[in-house]
């Protein structure tokens, strides 16, 4: 991808377009972001995950140059966002969960509007319009009012508007909130198509199945970076305890029995929860505790069909990491 209508990017920043170095942000006594370090490689899709209020958006706002760090620094494409936001802007795209589209403009008019804001020439705007309508699957609907487009279409249009100026780095803050699974898959296909062309993408999401799609994922909680690795490695290294899936004839009395066994200290159970007709229980050691759980349930008159040690999901790992700190 080439950037034609803006300043050149420093050569050195090409391999790692996002560098965060000991970054902190305080609001009075409240530490929103607490000495965070990470770097994102060119063309990488980096997931930035945390509970609400963990500091995700504050980090992004510092990377966009909207907030000044209290300590430490960050670089985006070699620019210091705190002092060079203006020069940086031509290379950076941003889309938030409240995708700011004008509902009373058509799809095409929204693209045009954003193109003009970014100062695209008339010729290159005409070309981008076609490309973006194509990419977002909006051909044939370009003259419809944005208000009449459904969630998935609007979301892809918002992405199109965020990249109208061909940014090299893209920040996506919960871009898929409230969109159905098919639209979300399409959206991720677009993200990866851009990454393949060398766009570097930092994305936050509350959907853990999307987090699995990121090449690397950082877990942030209460301003601190708790873990950073590939989804597969995080599952190996960060999960505290192992997950047992318990199938029995009648799950309701079984889970009541497990809850009281935990309260009475009979079994060292972490979270115990219903998953459809089954129960998931977190134990320190799956093999060691399978039999005692079976014995306890059978002593209560619950027929146990199976107890299997299952792989944790990224959500299990995320919750385990965030709640144990």
């Amino acid at each position: 991808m080439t950037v034609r209508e803006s300043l050149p990017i420093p050569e050195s920043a090409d391999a790692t377009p996002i560098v965060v170095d000991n970054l902190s942000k305080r609001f009075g006594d409240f530490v929103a972001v607490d000495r965070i370090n990470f770097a994102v490689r060119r063309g990488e899709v980096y997931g930035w995950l945390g509970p609400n209020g963990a500091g995700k958006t504050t980090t992004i706002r510092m990377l966009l140059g909207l907030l000044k760090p209290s300590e430490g620094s960050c670089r985006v494409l070699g620019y210091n966002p705190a002092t060079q936001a203006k020069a940086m802007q031509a290379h950076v795209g941003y889309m938030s969960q409240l995708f700011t589209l004008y509902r009373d403009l058509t799809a095409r008019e929204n693209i045009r509007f954003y193109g003009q804001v970014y100062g695209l020439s008339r010729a290159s705007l005409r070309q981008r319009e076609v490309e973006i309508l194509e990419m977002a699957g909006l051909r044939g609907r370009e003259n419809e009012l944005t208000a009449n487009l459904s969630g998935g279409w609007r979301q892809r249009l918002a992405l199109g508007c965020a990249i109208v100026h061909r940014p090299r780095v893209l920040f996506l803050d919960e871009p898929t909130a409230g969109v159905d699974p098919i639209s979300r898959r399409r959206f991720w296909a677009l993200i990866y198509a851009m990454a393949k062309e060398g766009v570097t993408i930092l994305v936050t999401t509350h959907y853990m199945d999307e987090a699995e799609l990121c090449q690397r994922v950082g877990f942030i909680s209460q301003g601190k970076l708790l873990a950073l690795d590939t989804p597969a490695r995080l599952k190996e290294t960060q999960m505290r305890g192992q997950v047992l899936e318990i199938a029995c004839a009648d799950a309701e009395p079984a889970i009541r029995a497990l809850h009281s066994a935990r309260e009475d200290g009979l079994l060292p159970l972490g979270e115990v929860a219903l998953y459809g007709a089954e129960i998931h229980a977190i134990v320190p050691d799956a093999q060691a505790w399978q039999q005692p759980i079976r014995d306890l349930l059978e002593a209560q008159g619950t027929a146990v069909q199976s107890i299997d040690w299952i792989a944790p999901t990224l959500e299990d790992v995320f919750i385990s990491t965030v709640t144990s700190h």
Partner: protein
Amino acid sequence: MTREAAILAQGLTKYFRTRGGTVCAVDGVDIAVQRGETFGLIGPDGAGKTTVTRLILGLLTRSGGRSAILGYDSMHDTYAIRERVGYISQQFALPPDLTVLENLRFFARVQGVSPAEQRRRIPELLEFAGLTQFTGRLAGRLSGGMKKKLALACSLVHEPKVVLLDEPTLGVDPVSRREFWNLLGNLRAEKGLTISVCTPYMDEAERCNQVGLIYAGRLIASDTPQAIKRLVPGRLLEFTPSQPERAAARIERMEGMLEIQTYGLMLHVFVDDVAQRQAEIVAALATEGIACEGMREIEPRMEEAFISLIQRAQRQQEDTAHPAQRPEEGP
């Protein structure tokens, strides 16, 4: 002895009149949720999840069919339903200028709960929702997850036997979402509550006893999560090809490939025979100079099943050129 289902819809139908004519928003939907079950209603945006919920509650007038909660007809016994049913609508907002405790009292009074009963139930609900320490906090100043838990507590203040929840965890972070669902699980296990939930989260659908998949107003599948996943034919291979688009195009032409879904950098391919097709895929892609990394068989999740079943329904709809809805294109 057969007891009537706690939540029932038979041939439930709703037409909306629009400028362009009549649109069938709900088309002959049959639902039967037994007492104590958790039922999840899933489907693409605009498929009719909210309309079905509102018809069953009697908030919208049905055009045809029958619907009832606990044997009470949605349209004729609305007062009996109000007394016995809790509801959280999608746009539900708690009065932000009331505290947690005032909110619970407010909803208790709306539901006609006596002061003596309030004194018993409200502390229980605060404890249940983990809000005991926050009774004095304004609802507007609660975190997103705490708001949802308070909304759930408010919907339970009149001790309903049935609750209907329309996307109750939208926009909530994974930790709060998990807590919310653990609360729903406790209600099922401890109180035998019947729960119906509309949700855009496929992992939440896996936590229900029964799942209904709705598309263009019609219920295209309704069964346990396991059975719904089994509706997708074939077995599922996952791998990362060095060139996903070219790989997908090549595989599409091969025999035994039932369905291809993109999954980030990976492909998900449903095949008729794992051992045979796995080798054939690797060989075919190798001739094109495409490498395959990490090929393995995985269990389809509700998300893969959802995508497969909805896309199949879309293709069928396109074939019959049914004009009522304009579906999203697939990934």
